[in-house]
């Protein structure tokens, strides 16, 4: 079996990567979980070592060179998608978006591989070569940040993950949505104010002011001035409004 080898290697990493505290934590944790789950895992996936880091962090698998000569390098990226139950139910009652995760897809490297999330949110990519990869999550109603995952070929067991949008480094590959997405504009409830604010409402309002407020203002003006103005009006050829209507009527 090559599992003990693997552990040796990852323990060996600790000394090599002493400068990175995070890497140490990962390697030791991975090593311990490996020892505990060796029997069950070995039975389940013969010759293919899958190291789960508390079922959350994507980790490494050993090379499958024995039966895949073409693609000797094979690592496993495993992780979990977490959509808050609270936010999911909020969106469900809010806008009836399909909040079910059955349509949640996890995409590796822009469509090179696509997998689906299980009901509990877990997903895994197998036989991924070493390198820097990109994981995207597509789920209607949520915006997920793509995740950069580095798998180092030299130090198996050393995996680094970071959100590309916020540049936040992930300790474990738990993907949470950055925000919920609402695809519809919210219709404002009917209100008198919005009616009054519309151009027609403004027109009506102006007219009401003219009809009811203007006479009051006219009353306040000195009657002598009105008389003067009226005389001026009579002299001028401009016809008055009422006169115009009366003429049209006759």
């Amino acid at each position, binding site marked *: 079996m090559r599992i003990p080898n693997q552990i040796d290697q990852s323990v060996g990493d600790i000394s090599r990567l002493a400068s990175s505290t995070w890497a140490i934590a990962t390697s030791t944790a991975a090593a311990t979980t490996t020892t505990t789950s060796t029997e069950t895992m070995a039975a*389940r*996936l*013969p*010759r*293919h070592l899958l190291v789960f880091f508390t079922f959350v962090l994507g980790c490494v698998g050993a090379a*499958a060179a024995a*039966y*895949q000569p073409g693609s000797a390098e094979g690592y496993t990226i495993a992780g979990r998608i977490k959509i808050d139950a609270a936010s999911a139910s909020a969106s469900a009652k809010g*806008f*009836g978006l*399909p909040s*079910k995760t*059955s*349509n949640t897809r996890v*995409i590796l*490297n*822009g*469509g*090179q*591989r*696509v*997998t*689906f*999330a*299980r*009901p509990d949110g877990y997903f*895994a990519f*197998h*036989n*991924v*070569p070493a*390198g*820097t*990869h*990109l994981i*995207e999550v*597509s789920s*209607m*109603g949520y*915006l997920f*940040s*793509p995740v950069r995952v580095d798998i180092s070929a030299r130090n198996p067991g050393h995996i680094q993950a970071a959100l*590309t*949008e916020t540049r936040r480094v992930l300790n474990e590959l738990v993907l949470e949505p950055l925000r919920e*997405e*609402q*695809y*519809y*504009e*919210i*219709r404002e409830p009917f209100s008198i104010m919005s*009616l009054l604010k519309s151009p*027609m409402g403004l*027109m*009506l309002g102006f*007219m009401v002011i003219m*009809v009811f407020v203007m006479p009051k203002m006219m009353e306040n003006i000195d009657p002598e001035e009105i008389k003067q103005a009226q005389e001026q009006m009579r002299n001028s050829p401009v016809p008055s*409004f*009422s006169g115009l209507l*009366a003429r049209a009527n006759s």
Partner: protein
Amino acid sequence: MAPPRHLLLILLAAASLATLAAAVYEDQVGLADWHQKYIGKVKQAVYHSQKSGRRRVVVLTEENVIASLDLRSGDIFWRHVIEKNDPVDQLGLSLAKYAVTLSMGGSTLRAWNLPDGQMIWETNLQVSKSSKPLLHFLSNSKVAKDNLVLVSAGQWIYAVSSIDGVIAWGKEFSLDGLEIKQVLQSPENDILYVVGIAGSSKLNLYQLNAKTGEVVKHIQESFPGALCGETILGSHNVLVALDETRSGLFLIEFKGESINYNKVHISDLVQDLSGRVKLLPLMSNGIIALQASSTVSLLKLKGIDGLEVIQSFEQPAAVSNALTITEKDEGFAVVRHMGSEIEFIVKFTSDVSNEVIREKINIDQHRGNIQKVFLNNYIRTDKSHGFRALLVLEDHSLLLVQQGNVVWSREDGLASIIDVTTSELPVEKDGVSVANVEHNLFEWLKGHMLKLKGTLMLASADELAAIQALRLKNSEKNKMTRDHNGFRKLLILLTKAGKVIALHTGDGRIIWSNLLPSLRASKSGEMPSALRIYQWQVPHHRVMRENPSILVVGRSGTDSAAPGVLSVLDSYSGEELNSLKFDHSVVQIIPLMLKDSSEQRLHLIVDSHYRAHLYPRSPDAINVFLHEIPNTYFYTVDIEKNVIRGHSLQKSCDLSSDDEYCFSTKELWSIVFPSDAERIAITETRKMNEVVHTQAKIIADQDVMYKYLSKNLVFVATVSPKAASEIGSAAPEEAWLVAYLIDAVTGRILHRVTHHGAQGPVHAVVSENWVVYLYFNLRAHRFEMAVIEIYDQSRADNKDVLKLILGKHNLSAPITSYIRSEVMVKSQSYFFTHSVKTMTVTQTAKGITSKQLLIGTIGDQVLALDKRFVDPRRSVNPTQQEKEEGIIPLTDSLPIIPMSYVTHSLQVEALRGIVAIPSKLESTTLVFTYGVDLFYTRLAPSRTYDSLTDEFSYALLLITIVALVAAIIFTWIWSEKKELNDKWR
């Protein structure tokens, strides 16, 4: 003074930003858009026999979709589109609870929950390469408590628990080159028989313990002749294998310890054999089916002694798998064509000469030949057996037939659209003719009676539905005539099956469909492929007697050197007006901007020898074209050789001098990219029909910049060889992308820019004077969208009004590519969040409306991104003038505004293409998106500034008018009274 002005500016900026995201309200969904779901051509179907609840069928399609359909209506319960590079090979049901799929050459096994389609588990298996992985369900639950699923591929066999996907055991057979062909289960004990062929003539039989996977026994037998690898199981212990020449059958019997075999020549059994002989997987007891190019024969096994022909059917005919009906009886169906009808025959294997059912079914002639049958039975009320079947036809449609009727049909050819064009609808005639009215008088009366009933609430449910249908038919958006705004059009779609389908943009219903005879598979098994669809004849507004027509170009084979075929269809009826088989191949089709006197558009078809052929072949067309030959240039892209070449046309072909419609070409220029450093990733040009409104752009400081507008601008992006593959394979140091702007007439490189640490996939859009392209930045590990805007520097000093008046400008000078105009380039790049599948730009009738980029994201949604976000002139602190111009402050990434998703809460599964079609209304563009699904909507990139929106409140307008009139009357009376009072005084 300053603060209010500041406030005004902020308000302006806010208002302009608000228009960047045009969204719909939830209650507006379906008013202007429609969404249709498809699955594709079914290749495997499994019935889910459930005692209670809805009957369903789980299907696997060639579009890599797994779906659960309602057997009563054909509706989709759930469906999953699996990525193309993860091809699903096998489908099965386990425990009547899960649908199990085997994909990626047998290495991925997934289980889906039947009621809701949720993925329950996924198991990755290490297998060797195999042409055909197998999935086998252990029917006997004695073996293990959890039903085991057997997966075999190449040299590997696995047993996986169907409850949680845990591998119970896995076994690799050490024999080199072994390929497992069959897995059988012994009914008596826990022994599995695994049959494999090693090399081409060594048959191996392994006996395995079903519980542990240990090999109990191994027998090898060499055959005198080679096998072609096609095997089926004749009965529980007889295997039938075709030999290499496909002229003989080996009957192989396993009897405990030994293998016995016998060779039978097919020509002794079936006369008149021609073409490729195939064994059809019938999987029944003692009956096998043999398919040749002209017949399908049913043969009965008589041990290994020989075979007997029961019946032969003329092609086209299809045979279904055997279906267990009772303990010892199996049934199977044969479907064949009888003139315009199809005949559906069900037989039992125990008594093959009798027919249980023989039904004649009428199906649409435009569906072509039958290709697959999936039989299912049900118990009638009188306890007898009834049969129904799913039929897959040549146009990829799926039909359920039962009791001689088609219960439902699905037009699943629409899941594989190749190309799209549009056609205007006929113009509404002024005044309806009398005959037309009388013809429709009864209908008219009936309609009104129905409506009356509806308003009086006397109508039944059926009548209500009829009223609804009538309303829909008469509603404005679904009329079969042209409308003022140009929203109503026909979308003409070319599908992979060679079917042309016209959809109405109002509601997406099918107006006509035609399976083109020239694109149908021939008797010899040659599969033609459809290529492109173009507008052929668009009659001018005044000439309304003629219908517009469309051109479909295809190949008579899948090979690119195969001769082409051409077909012209009427846009309103779908009738084939003309069809032609070329004597040359089709490599490139160039629609020209020219028309002949009958308003047929001229097309140049370039063949593999770089000869150009002119269509239509009419003397008129050649006369028009001869004048334009000196101005006709085209370019070709050779991705394999990494070369772009420019060509011009020369008169007459050098080969056949009598063919005056053939032109030889001359290579004018070529750009050879060094293969060790650059590989062509994408080439993109402007759309032929794009309209540009202004040639100049007035920038904030009252300066004028002239756009470099050339129809010959080609954008080419090359990537380094290491960066040509997928993300994750190249390091930033060895990956780069070079973007070129090339003039296609002269081959001059106008601009060249290198992005280090960038790689594909590259997507690009060229419009007006700008290019937007998207690539992956390996250093930041994010997608990046770069923009290049090109301005004509040689016209930059034409700013002076005096100069313009005095004519000292070069605006009137003829524009030619041979003038080496100075260009100025502005560029900028921004981060983009998602992976992109496809990208295009909106198009409007006059080009006044601002543009939006339509981006098909990896989540199968379409995002509308305003072009202003990808402006190269965005700066961190825009000046006041720039703000007024609408320049958005610089950000490093482009915003994803959820409300600007054109597809709102819908997904266009397996998105492949987005088409923007201008409408007559300047503000509006029509967007059609296709993949496995179809989605259509209207889009107004700068809001509908030239028409009232749908939510305009006419009631409020009416109320205002009434109130105004009332007020006028009131004030009039009032003033009259006052005047009278004044006079009395």
